[in-house]
């Protein structure tokens, strides 16, 4: 049974570097999965491949979303299927207010007035109400991240792909984000790429560890994070010994 997102032999080379080496990955309906791995492991490349930011060719393998072939699809096509994407590089409209950012995101799927209602819901859920009229560019980094999460969620995607959503957030903000992600997970599937181990533990979901372009280990957090191979990859031989 195919999952909500599946990659088959996903491969990507940049010059002499094998960024992804025949990665086979499956995300099931309503699953929350964390992708971790040291720098250069291929997490971001993987993310860009499944979001259409890297356009895939014939020899890059295949990506399927809910059974539909999306290999070679553009970001626009994938997003329009109902997939929400937050990239590693922050992408929000700094010169516009929080409300305006959310409204613009909502507008594609709702009417002019209806969008306001949806925006108010999201502002509530993420506790951004007080900042609604503030310019995004003037917010703290963590707050801007939260706004971007809001912009993704306002379209109520059934598949949510987040690349380092907790970066730059304060402790309480990270907890709030974890709560939000768990509550979205009740109706949507998610992939979260992150470095923050505390955050990954907070989410408590299955973890996939990338290393040198391939999947090293997959499984529940306790098992994966205590796996000696994972510790070796992150900390190095001597420390693990």
């Amino acid at each position, binding site marked *: 049974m195919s999952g909500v997102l599946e990659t088959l032999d996903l491969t990507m080379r940049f010059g002499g570097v094998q960024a992804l080496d025949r990665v086979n990955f499956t995300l099931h309906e309503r699953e929350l999965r964390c992708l971790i791995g040291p720098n250069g492991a291929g997490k971001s490349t993987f993310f860009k491949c499944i979001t259409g930011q890297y356009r895939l060719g014939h020899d890059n393998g295949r990506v399927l979303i809910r059974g539909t072939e999306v290999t070679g699809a553009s*970001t*626009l096509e994938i*997003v*329009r299927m109902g997939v929400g*994407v937050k*990239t590693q*590089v922050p*992408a*929000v*409209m*700094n*010169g*516009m207010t929080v409300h*305006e950012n959310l*409204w*613009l*995101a909502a*507008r*594609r799927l709702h009417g*002019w007035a209806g969008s*306001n209602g949806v925006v108010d819901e999201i502002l509530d859920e993420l506790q951004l109400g007080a900042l609604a009229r503030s310019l995004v560019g003037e917010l703290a980094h963590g707050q801007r991240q939260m706004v*971007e999460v809001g*912009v*993704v969620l306002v*379209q109520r995607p059934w598949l949510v792909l987040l690349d380092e959503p907790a970066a730059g957030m304060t402790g309480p903000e990270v907890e709030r984000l974890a709560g939000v992600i768990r509550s979205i997970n009740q109706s949507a599937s998610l992939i979260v790429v992150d470095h923050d181990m505390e955050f990954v533990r907070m989410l408590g979901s299955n973890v996939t560890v990338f290393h040198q372009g391939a999947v090293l280990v997959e499984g529940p957090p306790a098992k994966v994070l205590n796996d000696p191979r994972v510790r070796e990859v992150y900390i190095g031989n001597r420390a693990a010994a």
Partner: protein
Amino acid sequence: MNEWRATGSMQWGWFLLALALLVLLPLGFDTHTMSLLLIWALFAMSLGLLWGYAGLLSFGHAAWFGLGAYTYAIAAVNIGESTVPLLLAILVPAAGAAIVGAMMFYGRISDVYMGVITLVVTLILFNFMSATAGDAYRIGDARLGGFNGIPGFPILNVPGMPEVSLFGVPMYYVCVAALLGCYLLARWLLARSFGRILVGIRENEARCELMGYNVPACKTAVFAISAAMAGLAGCLFANWAEIVTPGVFSLRQTAEVIIWVLVGGLGTLLGPVLGAMALGAVKLYLGEQTVIDNSLVLGLLLIFVVLGMRRGALPTLQGWWDSRRRRLSLAQGARRRLGASSEPTA
């Protein structure tokens, strides 16, 4: 409640005042110069829409201005009655822009390359039109005329009545109608979702696409609309000057409109209009004497604006005004609070 500062709003009071002033102007003033200023204002406004709101800087906006002028002249010579030529003068630049725009935007080129490509398009048109001297170069009955251009084509007439030409004051009113009409159209576009998407594209194109908007399509659309307005301005210019020459495609012309928009105020519709009219008036005045060269003034102005007043005159003035008001109300608030437990100051 749902008004966006970035897209501005329709100020009906000011608009009607301007309309009244413009309508009454012929009673006391010469309309010939004013018509030209209105034409330049329309040209500048078209770039202001494209650059200020969608964030797309075209270094060759004169291409559409010139295409509008030449299309009108060629069509008018061939057809005789002016209604179809006027329509063509709007549609041909729009079509050209749609093609060039699609080529650029679907190719995801950067700002710099857009600048280069639009500049080169204008250069191609300039070079081509300058070289079309001689009988061999003609479209229908119209000889392209090379560097000397196309003189003596029929000017605008009342639709359906080719004998009744709109020369003089009626031409002025046509220019007024064109400027105000396009202004209303631009305001309408900006008030809709399309206008907000454009601002979103200007602010963060990547996120706009991740929101699911077809960014290349929107960019091509606004590029074509802006070109259509520029083409209309060009057509009116042809009628005003009663001749079209390759100068409409010149680097000078395309640089001037950029300066008008920048100095007048990027990010507003009114800024470019005022910038064009003010600087246009200065240019006409300078043209009558030889001591101060127009290039010199424009050049200095552009340098100063880029270095000092990057957002342009109107937004800078608005900014000063806003911050003055804020300081005044802060001071008033402070005084009120202090007044509650006041001690006379020494």
